[in-house]
């Protein structure tokens, strides 16, 4: 058991187990994004940490019983991890466990279903953490190497997840990660029962792999996802599907699918039948079956830009399935830059769109912000993707980072326009009004920043019964252009909403609104009276920035009672469901963390000395580490161009480099004063990051992807390396004074990490990333301060309390 060879196998085993766990965690985030919505991705981080915290508490209470049989328990827990990874996925799709986001505020039982959902997903993390935790408790004198193995494996898990996203179906991945956990168990099976263990584990491994490849379980999608509703249509079928880090993509056909957003009532022709592409079961775009089909856009408000000029150089951002690109080509544009980062969306629609064969089109497979940072071209027209959806999205986009809709993005777009160039953006009308007002505010602030003193001369918008298109021009609209817009509107039964010299009668001629609220608020925003609107309106209208890129987050908690009074308790929830869900998961994670982690530990209180230090030191570390992780994830979404790459890079990078730091720390002979110096350095580094990280990332936006990966490793790795040190150093310090406090410390750390995952998400939305980074620095400062709470050892305890080793 204590042999060198066994310890080396143990190191590999822990590394492999950790790799499988992180890959599983990332795959769960994708899985929940597919069957439900994006929010639950952050819930997964909390659930994983809950598993670790609860395991710590379990070990703390039962350690005397567990340690003597660790030889059997370690492989057993790893086997259970491997079995439960796919089993839980299957169970969560069964009727008794299924839960639906949309029903959360409709049926009270759904709140319990969500709680059950969280408890189910908690199980594999719990068993994994039991295995890792027992090893830490048993081998505290070699904790640095073990911690390194754990974190190095976790780091590689991120890379493994990216590979798996490209090569496996979403429900196959848990079987693969489960298989890896079984392999981890095989490395450390007890020698005197080797044959039985090998046979059992081998059979289990085979049973896991077979279903994964021959019959992966179907995805139990919410009935409210657009893919579910499309598949209910007659003769709807999935022609092809594939997975990627960007999302699980499907190409669907049906003879009844049609596309004509905000079609004019003057149109009397045939609306073309289309195919559709979905990403993570949400609508990603229409695929026009023939080039001429895009003529339907002539009868939508988005055609307004083409009424004014024959644009030659056109940029299509977040181009999706190429509908706007084909339209621009049809209208005679000579140079069209089609920018889309989701490779599968482009590939899937290419058969129909044939954009690669269109000489006027250049395809750019990258995210739009990187493209804007790199290109030096100027354009006659820049087209942004439509915002919102017909009927609204119930606020389910609230947590989605939308870096193309920030003031910085609009500023970049404006700078890429030719002298007489336009940019255009179409918005689905929502009620109460949010999207159009926030876009108006974003445009106004951009024009103000560019020194435009009469924004109303540079801005036109055209309204149909359900869409609104804004056109922004660098130079004032000419009288000929203004007349062209009036003629366009008359012909197609649209109404101008913003137009130089507009009258109130013109605004409400064909698509009459019951009140003037939309007009008066938009006028106030454009005229510069924005601040009072931001302060008083019931929804959050202040434009998104790169520091707070949540364009679709409109909820103001203090307005909720007013909205409930007007719309009723239930309906108000559906106005901004997304943010409310984060609140629900935060409260549930708080409850679960208290019950599963803290409550059991109260039995151990009397055996622990230096409670104050233990509580504050490890709380601060848990909170600080998680806040930094969330901020880095958010910042690198912009830098690396997609949330999945960012999550994988940050989680892997942080775990790998902090693992390296913890390993090196095991060789340091540090006094408490030494630990204080390390923590102080972390505090100062985070303060610097709060200020300069955004600037550094912006400066590097135009780099190639490989340069970006290198820069990311450095920027993520630097603080992580040092942040990896205080935890094992603190555990080692505690183990020398009071070994029974070790699992208690681990549990406290786990509890605060769980709660901080959801809390950090809420704080990021409310206060922005820079302030959140400052809070992380504060958390580490509190950790530093806690070292002054350490009680000196009494003389009967021997050695000086301030030295270790």
């Amino acid at each position: 058991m204590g042999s060198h060879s066994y310890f080396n196998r143990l190191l590999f085993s822990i590394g492999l187990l950790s790799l499988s766990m992180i890959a599983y965690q990332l795959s769960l985030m994708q899985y929940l994004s597919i069957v439900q919505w994006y929010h639950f991705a952050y819930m997964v981080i909390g659930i994983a940490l809950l598993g670790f915290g609860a395991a710590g508490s379990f070990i703390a209470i039962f350690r005397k019983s567990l340690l003597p049989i660790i030889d059997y328990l370690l492989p057993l827990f790893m086997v259970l991890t491997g079995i439960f990874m796919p089993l839980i996925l299957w169970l969560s799709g069964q009727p008794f466990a299924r839960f639906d986001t949309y029903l959360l505020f409709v049926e009270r039982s759904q709140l319990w279903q969500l709680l059950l959902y969280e408890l189910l997903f908690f199980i594999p993390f719990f068993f994994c953490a039991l295995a890792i935790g027992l090893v830490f408790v048993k081998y505290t004198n070699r904790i640095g190497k073990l911690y390194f193995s754990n974190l190095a494996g976790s780091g590689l898990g991120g890379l493994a997840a990216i590979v798996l996203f490209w090569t496996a179906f979403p429900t196959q991945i848990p079987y693969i990660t489960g298989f890896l956990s079984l392999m981890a168990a095989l490395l450390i099976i007890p020698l005197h029962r080797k044959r039985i263990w090998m046979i059992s584990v081998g059979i289990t491994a085979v049973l896991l792999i077979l279903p994964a490849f021959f019959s992966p379980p179907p995805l139990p999608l919410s009935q409210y996802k657009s893919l579910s509703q499309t598949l209910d249509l007659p003769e709807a079928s999935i022609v092809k599907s594939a997975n990627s880090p960007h999302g699980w993509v499907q190409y669907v056909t049906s003879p009844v699918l049609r596309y004509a957003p905000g079609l004019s009532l003057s149109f009397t022709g045939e609306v073309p039948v289309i195919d559709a592409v979905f990403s993570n079961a949400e609508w990603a775009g229409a695929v026009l079956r023939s080039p001429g089909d895009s003529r339907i856009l002539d009868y939508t408000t988005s055609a307004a830009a083409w009424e004014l000029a024959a644009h030659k150089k056109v940029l299509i951002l977040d181009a999706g399935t190429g509908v706007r690109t084909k339209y621009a080509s049809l209208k005679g544009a000579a140079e069209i830059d089609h920018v889309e980062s989701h490779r599968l969306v482009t590939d899937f629609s290419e058969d129909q769109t044939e954009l690669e064969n269109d000489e006027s089109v250049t395809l750019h497979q990258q995210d739009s912000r990187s493209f804007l940072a790199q290109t030096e071209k100027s354009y006659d027209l820049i087209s942004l993707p439509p915002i919102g959806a017909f009927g609204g999205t119930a606020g389910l986009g609230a947590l989605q980072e939308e870096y193309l809709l920030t003031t910085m993005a609009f500023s970049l777009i404006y700078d890429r326009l030719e002298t007489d160039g336009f940019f255009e953006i179409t918005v689905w009308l929502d009620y109460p009004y949010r999207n159009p007002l926030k876009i108006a505010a974003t445009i106004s602030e951009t024009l103000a920043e560019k020194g435009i003193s009469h924004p109303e001369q540079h801005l036109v918008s055209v309204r149909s019964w359900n869409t609104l298109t804004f056109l922004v021009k660098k130079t004032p609209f000419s009288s000929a252009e203004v007349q062209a817009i009036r003629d366009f509107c008359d012909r197609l039964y649209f109404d101008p909403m913003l137009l130089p010299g507009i009258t109130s009668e013109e605004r409400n001629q064909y698509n009459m609104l019951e009140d003037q609220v939309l007009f008066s608020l938009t006028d106030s925003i454009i005229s510069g009276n924005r601040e009072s609107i931001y302060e008083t309106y019931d929804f959050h209208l202040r434009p998104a920035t790169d520091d707070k890129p949540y364009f679709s987050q409109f909820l103001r908690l203090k307005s909720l009672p007013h909205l409930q009074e007007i719309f009723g308790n239930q309906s108000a929830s559906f106005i901004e469901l997304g943010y409310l869900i984060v609140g629900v998961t935060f409260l549930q994670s708080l409850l679960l963390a208290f019950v599963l982690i803290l409550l059991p530990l109260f039995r151990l209180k009397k055996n622990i000395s230096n409670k104050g230090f233990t509580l504050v030191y490890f709380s601060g570390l848990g909170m600080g580490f998680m806040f930094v992780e969330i901020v880095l994830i958010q910042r690198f979404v912009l830098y690396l161009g997609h949330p999945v790459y960012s999550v994988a890079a940050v989680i892997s990078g942080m775990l790998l480099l902090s693992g390296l730091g913890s390993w090196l720390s095991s060789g340091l002979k540090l006094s408490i004063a030494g630990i204080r110096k390390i923590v102080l350095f972390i505090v100062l580094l985070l303060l610097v990051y709060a200020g300069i990280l955004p600037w550094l990332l912006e400066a590097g936006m135009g780099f190639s992807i490989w340069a970006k990966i290198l820069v990311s490793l450095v920027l993520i790795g630097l603080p992580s390396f040092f942040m990896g040190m205080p935890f094992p150093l603190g555990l080692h310090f505690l183990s020398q004074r009071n070994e029974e406090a070790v699992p208690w410390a681990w549990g406290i750390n786990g509890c605060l990490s769980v709660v901080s995952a959801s809390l950090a998400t809420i704080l990021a939305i409310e206060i922005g990333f820079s302030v959140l980074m400052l809070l992380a620095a504060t958390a580490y400062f509190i950790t530093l301060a806690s070292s002054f709470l350490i009680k000196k050892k009494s003389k009967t305890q021997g050695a000086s309390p301030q030295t270790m080793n």
Partner: protein
Amino acid sequence: MKSELLISVVIMLFSIAPAEQDKYHRDRQQMVTAQLEARGIKHKPTLNAMRSVERHRLVPKAQVEYAYEDRPLPIGFGQTISQPYMVGYMTEVIRPTAGMKVLEIGTGSGYQAAVLAEIVDEVYTIEIVEELAKTAKSSLEEMGYTNIHLKEGDGYFGWEEHAPYDAIIVTAASAFIPPLLIEQLKEGGKMVIPVGAPFTTQQLMLVEKQKDGKRKTRNLLPVRFVPFTRN
């Protein structure tokens, strides 16, 4: 003694069903009073229709106890049965009377069709989801409606054989108004389109086909949002 007990049990069982029906009847009357009349629905035929239509027979079994509550309910396939107030509001907007012929695109539960059928001569309703069409058809037939004509199909084409219509209700969420539906609407007729995310309808679009050929829309707000302002 045993036979007396048996007779008592049988009598009890037979009285449960009528008692339950009385409860639904009471709930329905209460619904009309508290949710429709109290919110300004005045059109008498609409109110009478909603007092008559047994909404609880058109919702899934799991939702029956909530049938008369002031909220929409899930009916499967990502669809809902609208909040009673919304149904009343939409019905009142089109001002149905005897002699009218109405087309509905998106039968869903069949409740809107049943309410209309209490007032107008003929209701033609189209549902594209097969299961929903079957369930609604079966429920409406059981309830005895003979003037509701339901077909499973694509509402994009309307129902040309019975056009033109005095009114068209388009409850199926669609990002555009099919041109054929406008063609099948009588001049001076009204088309109503509820707009909103699942479980909530924030606004209604009223489409009017004018005699001069022009088409106009009017945005109606069943619930008027008044922004909070200071001072």
